[in-house]
Structures are given as C-alpha cells and as structure tokens.
C-alpha cells in the first residue's frame, strides 16, 4: 500500500502565460533532483508537466494569458504527484487523445508525451470550477518511455489511466 500522506508539499501558482513555463520547469527539475529521480527521467517528467500546462493555456483558457494555474507537488517516499488545477473551460475527456504517430503533422504530441512519461494520468472534472489533472511518477518503475526505464519501457507498456 502506498502511503497516503506526502512527506512534503510544494505549491506554485503561476500566470497562464508561456513566459513562465520556464519557472514551472525549474521547479520540477529541482524537486526531481531533491527526490533523486534518475537524471534521465527528470527531463521527461518536466516535459510531461509542461505539455499539461501548455494544454491548459490553449484549451482551458483559450490562450488567455491572464489566468492562474496552480501546481501542487506532493513528494512521497516512492513517487512524485503533481496536480495541475485550472479554473477555465472543463476538459472534455473524450477529446483528450494523442494523434497517431504515423500521421506526421505539427501538433498532437503533448498528450502522447504525458501518457508515455507519467505512470498515472487522471483528469478530474468534479471541482465546481475547472479541471484537476493528476500526474504521478514513481521513483522506480518500468513501463514508461523514459530513457533507461527498463525493458517494459520505450516500446510502450500499458499505463494506468482513469478519467
């Protein structure tokens, strides 16, 4: 049973402006280092969080850069949980799908990266306003596309997924 209470929590609230993606990224990098994630995972985790953030800017807020995005980082012994909260248009979960890789075109890769790199991806539309996206990454677990994640990885193992 994974423990219920995080050891540490960090909250970050940033404007929905692409200018501040680098701030979120820097926090994710540092926290992953503090938790001693394998160096090669860190970039993948940061990318997944950033793609989720980017989609909030684009779809929940329709590129309105004056809104807020709240990130809650819950640090557990064995995993990092990142909750992204927005207060915009609710996600239509049916619409959340990556494009087929063969269909090479600009776009359509964000959701693909999120699902490839994170161990759990859950969209929660139950809050009164907006959506909460919960991303979880375990310190040690195969089945993802992070470099060196073991055989189950890169090829594309099944992910836990709920909405």
């Amino acid at each position, binding site marked *: 049973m994974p423990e219920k209470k995080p050891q540490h929590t960090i909250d970050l609230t940033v404007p929905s402006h*692409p*200018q501040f*993606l*680098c701030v979120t*990224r820097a926090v994710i990098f540092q926290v992953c280092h503090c938790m001693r994630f394998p160096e*090669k995972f860190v*970039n*993948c985790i*940061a*990318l997944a969080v*950033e*793609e989720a953030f*980017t989609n909030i*800017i684009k779809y929940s807020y329709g590129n309105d850069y004056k809104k807020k995005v709240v990130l809650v980082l819950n640090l557990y012994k064995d995993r990092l949980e990142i909750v992204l909260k927005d207060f915009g248009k609710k996600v239509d979960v049916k619409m959340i799908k990556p494009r087929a*890789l063969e269909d*090479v*075109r*600009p*776009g359509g*890769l*964000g959701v*693909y*990266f999120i699902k*490839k790199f994170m161990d759990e991806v859950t969209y929660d539309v139950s809050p009164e306003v907006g959506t909460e996206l919960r991303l979880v990454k375990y310190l040690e677990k195969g089945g993802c*596309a992070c*470099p060196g994640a073991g055989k189950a990885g*890169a090829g594309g193992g099944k992910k836990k997924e709920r909405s």
Partner: protein
Amino acid sequence: MIKIDVSEKNGWAVLAVDGQIDLHTSPDIRKELAGRAKAKKARIAIDLTRVSYIDSSGLATFIEAMQKLKKGGGEIALCGLSESVRHVFEVARLDSIFAIHASSDDLK
C-alpha cells in the same frame, strides 16, 4: 529567451539555436524559419548543440517547416542533438522523419 544565430555552410542556411525551446520561445524560431522556408529549394539546418530542452511546440515548429520546405523542393536537417533532445524525437518517432546529423560539419 532564445538566441538564433544564422550562418552559411556548404549551401545550407544554419540556424544555431541557443536556449530552451518551449511554447514561449518557439514562435521566434517559427518566424525565422517561415521567411526562409518560402524560398524555392531552400536548405535549412537547425543546429541544436546549445539546446538542452525541447517541447512539442518545438517539434511542431520543425515539422511545419519541413512540410513547407518539401513543397518548394527544399530540405531541412537537424544537427547537434543532445541526448535528452534526441530522446524526445525518438519517442515521437520523428528521428526517422528528419535528417539528423551529429554536427553541422556533416552537412553536405
């Protein structure tokens, strides 16, 4: 903040990018590429030696440029990918779509 340095090598326009490529910085690259991709048979190489990070908006920018260039009989090449940048291309299976060189010295 991103810097793009343009030079010429063996008939290629080499765009050396310095910085992290994300939704905020990729429009600068797109702008630089858009002007050049319109020319017939343009050959454009992106030198990513000084890029430690790229997101899907960066990939989209390069795919868009490739498609424009192809229409005009041009070409695009990427060089100097760090391990983490190359990994992002691989996971998206774009490493087989783009011509990728170790360094801009390999452009012919």
